[in-house]
């Protein structure tokens, strides 16, 4: 049987999505490399730009998962607003433009130890619980379904989030204002 035949049979069976898996692998690799560069690079502006790659990769993963609405919101809110906010923060605190070297070596050592231990524990737990649980995404989640859920079932949480955003806005102004 040719490779194409295998692919067709798998696609017909609905349990082999080669293209999706290849895209997932490429995007995941980009995300992990950019995240590591983001937390290790000395230049803060470069870190913000690496963060853009991580956030864009997350948006791509949301599309792979069939959640277009979350992906669009991710691009609008994170890449559009939060990164700009970060760049403004970097510009307003000029001391941070340079690198922050002299990071204590033992602090880094402890941090990487904690991170690796956490990764091992979570990895073992995940591999133990969901070792071959299949994820079949046959059609994307409709926008209407999401908005229906937000404005009916989760309306209280939605209103609470809007009050929280307002409070955060006023709080940020009060905190950052010059006397």
């Amino acid at each position: 049987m040719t490779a194409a035949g295998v692919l067709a049979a798998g696609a017909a069976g609905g349990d082999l999505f080669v293209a999706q898996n290849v895209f997932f692998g490429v995007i995941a690799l980009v995300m992990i490399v950019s995240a590591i560069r983001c937390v290790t690079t000395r230049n803060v502006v470069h870190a913000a730009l690496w963060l853009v790659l991580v956030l864009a990769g997350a948006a791509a993963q949301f599309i792979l998962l069939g959640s277009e609405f979350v992906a669009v919101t991710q691009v609008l809110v994170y890449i559009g607003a939060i990164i700009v906010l970060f760049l403004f923060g970097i510009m307003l605190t000029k001391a941070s433009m340079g690198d922050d070297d002299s990071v204590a070596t033992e602090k880094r050592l402890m941090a990487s130890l904690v991170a690796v231990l956490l990764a091992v524990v979570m990895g073992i737990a995940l591999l133990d619980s969901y070792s071959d649980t299949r994820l079949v995404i046959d059609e994307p989640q409709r926008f209407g379904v999401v908005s229906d859920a937000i404005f009916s079932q989760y309306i209280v949480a939605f209103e609470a989030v809007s009050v929280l955003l307002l409070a955060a806005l006023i709080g940020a102004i009060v905190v950052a204002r010059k006397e």
Partner: protein
Amino acid sequence: MILNQFLLLAAILFCIGVYGVLARRNGIMVLMSVEIILNSVNINLVAFGAFRDNVAGEVFALFVIAVAAAEVGIGLAIVLLIYRNRRSIDLSEADLLKG
């Protein structure tokens, strides 16, 4: 696709974010690492939502995005305030409450 590939990616991103929070001393870098952590949680939420075919995962991912926006606004305001008072955003120097 299997569910685990998304969960493992989110776990790795979470650990990278935890490393950033613990190792960096620049206040803005700590906030960026927190963003990486929140994003990995979002991937988890959406993956489980797709797995259960339930819209709750997406709805709560949207709520997390909104809360993250609020958190960055407040966090940057606090970092600006620290910078204005001390001319530095090195968090290891902000130890006024240390006993």
